[in-house]
């Protein structure tokens, strides 16, 4: 690994599902000589692409987990995180973006900017990730890179500027014209390995000149020197243009666009040149840590290898040899055998094995410098933990983790499966913060919850394949919540005298809605009506009551419990008695506080041919959807709506049959909102019935 950070690029490859990003990664690894043969995602050789290391990914042809890999191109060391395309797995995308300095946004030249591209782009903006757009699949029927560029400008508000134009399109795709050098570039020989530069074909010359003018106009905004050179109307040095493109890209004010076809091996080497020339090295990017010892003051990390270590664990995997922790270093060095401190736990851990990952193969290394992405073996930690060296106690900013919105009950088919399920769930929960599991004590069922049907589906498949655990799966359930809408008083006495020492506790006060947060306990007791030692017992009792609402048994959120009065008995009052009193008080107050049921509302985007717009809107309307709007671009329409998650189960099948399979949809969690009265009554009825059984 090269020590100079100028020669390091940490990049991600993000896109809408099926835009060909895994195929692109495969080509990148091939041209950088990291692999020696190309295997297609759904190739006939049955090997699958290198980055799709899980069996399931290879079978389905989609990437589920991001795998980190490393390769070298010319003088540059590139760390690549291949990120999943489906919206259910966006936490993987977000975690990857958190640690990356730059990204390639892959777009399909036919599909253009699709819903997932918009989600991914929003995430890139959130983490200030400069990006290059790569318009892939220019060999496909219906390819229209110009339309994609327009969409980049209109839908993503990017200052998208073409640096290349394709030579031919669809089956006639031959190569690209580089608008910076004004040369035609052809990719010849076995698997496009030999690059031939030539004069621009006469038929394309005028278009190339016009596009170069357009590009120079946009790029010159970032360089006074370039603008002067353009005004002088002489030859414009190539380096000047490249420098301006880089400047614009790093400032996030320019998105250079490159074109090609990964599948047909066209344009990839130039894209790698683009990564080298236009995407940032670790020192170009400002990363902020929080100083825990100094009231979480923001501190810029130095990127300096000589400074104490600051590293972020952004991904965990539990493999055959123990826990594998993917780490990005922001300053300092990690060395084998050295001790580092986990900021969250304060524990010192010894760095055992240190490896550089290449999909599921690994390469042992002795040390890693600042700005690097590597993996540690046998280090106990959670995803998102920060490791520090020396005496500093910093934490990298916390990552945005959405709460799960859907759950499923799973049941082992046999005893052997029972053990394996526990192991599998343990591992999945550690790896993926959006995946949760718990046992419902009333039904004895194991419940798993996550971000969508596909998300849970994939984990069930993994249980079967990786842990040989066959499970029976219940119907998907929406993660309802309960909350209160008004203030309500309580005054509850818990009294029991059934032989032996009795139990006594009285708790008075009120519940009120909490605007932000899940639960808050306020102690307003004056005069010792509840002794100090039992205040925390009250807190415990209220807090435990929040786990299960009285309407449907769903968790309660947004309640402030205030106690301001009470009573005790010198002999019969105890921790347990006050916990029980608080639980009773909560019940009493809750019923009077206007409890309501809330359901997750999803932001749904359906894209399809305009002829089906009416049918699509109708199908959303039938599902209690509020149609926010539609965007119509000639033959193509996007319908945006907000719908309850409970109404979206099985929607993909309905949509397919409504639109002859020509439309697709994506959804992401938007907010929790109150369920309509009729639905609430039904849910309460079902819950009452389930309690009786």
């Amino acid at each position: 690994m090269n020590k100079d950070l100028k020669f390091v690029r940490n990049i991600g490859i993000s896109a809408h599902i099926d835009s060909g990003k895994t195929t692109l990664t495969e080509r990148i690894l091939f041209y950088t000589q990291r692999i020696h043969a190309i295997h297609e995602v759904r190739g006939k050789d049955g090997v699958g692409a290198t980055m799709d290391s899980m069996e399931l990914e290879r079978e389905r042809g989609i990437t589920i987990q991001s795998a980190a890999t490393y390769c070298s191109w010319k003088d540059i060391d590139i760390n690549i995180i291949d990120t999943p395309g489906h919206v259910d797995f966006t936490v993987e995308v977000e975690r990857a973006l958190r640690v990356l300095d730059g990204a390639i946004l892959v777009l399909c030249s036919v599909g253009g900017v699709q819903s997932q591209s918009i989600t991914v782009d929003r995430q890139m903006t959130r983490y200030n990730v400069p990006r290059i757009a790569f318009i892939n699949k220019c060999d496909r029927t219906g390819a229209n890179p110009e339309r994609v560029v327009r969409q980049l400008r209109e839908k993503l508000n990017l200052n998208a500027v073409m640096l290349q134009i394709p030579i031919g399109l669809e089956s006639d795709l031959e190569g690209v014209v580089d608008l910076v050098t004004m040369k035609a570039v052809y990719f010849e020989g076995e698997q496009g390995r030999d690059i031939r530069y030539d004069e621009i074909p006469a038929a394309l010359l005028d278009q190339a000149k016009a596009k170069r003018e357009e590009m120079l106009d946009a790029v010159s905004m970032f360089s006074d020197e370039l603008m002067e050179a353009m005004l002088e109307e002489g030859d414009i040095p190539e380096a000047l243009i490249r420098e301006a493109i880089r400047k614009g890209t790093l400032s996030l004010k320019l998105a250079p666009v490159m074109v090609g076809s990964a599948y047909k091996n066209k344009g990839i080497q130039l894209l790698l040149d683009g990564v080298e020339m236009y995407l940032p090295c670790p020192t170009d990017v400002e990363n902020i840590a929080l100083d825990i010892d100094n009231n979480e003051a923001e501190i810029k990390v130095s990127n300096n290898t000589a400074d104490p270590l600051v590293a972020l664990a952004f991904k965990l995997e539990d493999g055959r040899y123990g826990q594998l922790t993917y780490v990005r270093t922001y300053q300092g060095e990690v060395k084998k055998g050295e001790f580092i401190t986990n900021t969250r736990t304060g524990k010192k851990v010894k760095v055992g094995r240190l490896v550089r990952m290449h999909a599921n193969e690994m390469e042992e290394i002795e040390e890693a410098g600042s700005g690097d992405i590597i993996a540690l073996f046998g280090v106990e930690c959670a995803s998102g933990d920060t490791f520090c060296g020396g005496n500093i106690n910093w934490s990298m900013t916390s990552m945005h983790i959405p709460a799960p919105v859907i759950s499923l009950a799973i049941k082992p088919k046999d005893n052997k499966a029972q053990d394996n399920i526990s192991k599998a769930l343990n591992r999945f929960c550690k790896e993926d913060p959006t995946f949760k599991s718990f046992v419902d004590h009333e039904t004895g069922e194991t419940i798993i919850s996550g971000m969508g049907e596909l998300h849970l589906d994939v984990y069930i498949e993994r249980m079967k394949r990786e842990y040989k655990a066959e499970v029976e799966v219940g119907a998907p359930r929406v993660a309802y919540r309960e909350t209160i809408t008004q203030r309500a008083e309580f005054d509850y006495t818990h009294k029991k005298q059934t032989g032996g020492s009795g139990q006594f506790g009285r708790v008075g006060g009120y519940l009120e809605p909490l605007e932000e947060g899940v639960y808050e306990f306020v102690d307003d007791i004056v005069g010792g009506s509840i002794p100090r030692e039992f205040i925390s017992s009250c807190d415990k009792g209220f807090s435990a009551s929040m786990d299960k609402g009285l309407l449907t048994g769903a968790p309660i959120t947004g309640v402030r419990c205030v106690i301001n009065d009470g009573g005790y008995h010198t002999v019969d009052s105890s921790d347990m008695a006050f916990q029980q009193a608080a639980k009773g008080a909560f019940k009493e107050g809750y019923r009077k506080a206007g409890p309501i049921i809330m359901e997750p509302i999803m932001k749904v985007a359906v894209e399809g041919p305009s002829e089906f717009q009416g049918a699509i809107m109708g199908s959303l309307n039938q599902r209690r959807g509020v149609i926010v709007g539609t965007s119509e671009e000639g033959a193509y329409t996007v319908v945006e709506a907000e719908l309850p998650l409970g109404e979206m189960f099985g929607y993909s099948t309905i949509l397919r049959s409504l639109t002859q399979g020509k439309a697709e949809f994506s959804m992401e969690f938007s907010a929790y909102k109150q369920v309509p009265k009729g639905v609430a009554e039904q849910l309460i009825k079902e819950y009452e019935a389930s309690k009786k059984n």
Partner: protein
Amino acid sequence: MGYEPLVKQNPLRVLKLTGNDKKMGLIMARAGLGKTALLVQIALDTILRGNRVLHISIGENLDKTKLWYDDMLQAILQECPVAKPHELIDMVRQHRMIMTFKEAAFDRSRLEERLNDLIQQNIFTPDCVVIDGFDFTATDHAKLEDIKNLMESLRLQTWFSATSHRDDTRVSPTGVPAPCHELDDLFETVVLLKSYQDHIELEILRDSGKKAEGSSHLRLDPATMMVRQED
């Protein structure tokens, strides 16, 4: 709905938005003076009166159009706070639908098709349609009359915006500037936004289908783009 004070206080009452459900109105101004802001305020006033609005935005994207509503609603809430603002925000969301079209993708037949989709399937039945970004330079009297007939048949109040240009000095006898100078008889109400050194004034050119007399005494606040009564 409990939002009567917001409706009553609205200076837009001068435009007589209530009552005539077949009315066609026009907001004209040079680029950047606040046509969309005014259209959105008309839409919000209609929603606050319990009606539904279809906002058609030509050549603009969905997010930007939504942002206009969010901003104008925030401005209204700042001036006239209500007890439960999130309920008002939800109500507006449910009573409004936005449709965006590329310039080339919008025409009368497409409009009819989309309105039929919405109304016949009972997806969204608007009471008012605002059409922002319609290209009046590419239309003529017959075509616009055709749209007017369509909207009248559906009993829809319709508001358009049109951009006038400094260098085109043609005007109709009622003072409606180009490119709408030959179309003015199709509109019940025509409002022209006029820019002065420190403010933008709403000049009502046509009212109830006739040439308007006197001043509207309305201005656009340059900071919030909200309509205000002159002091």
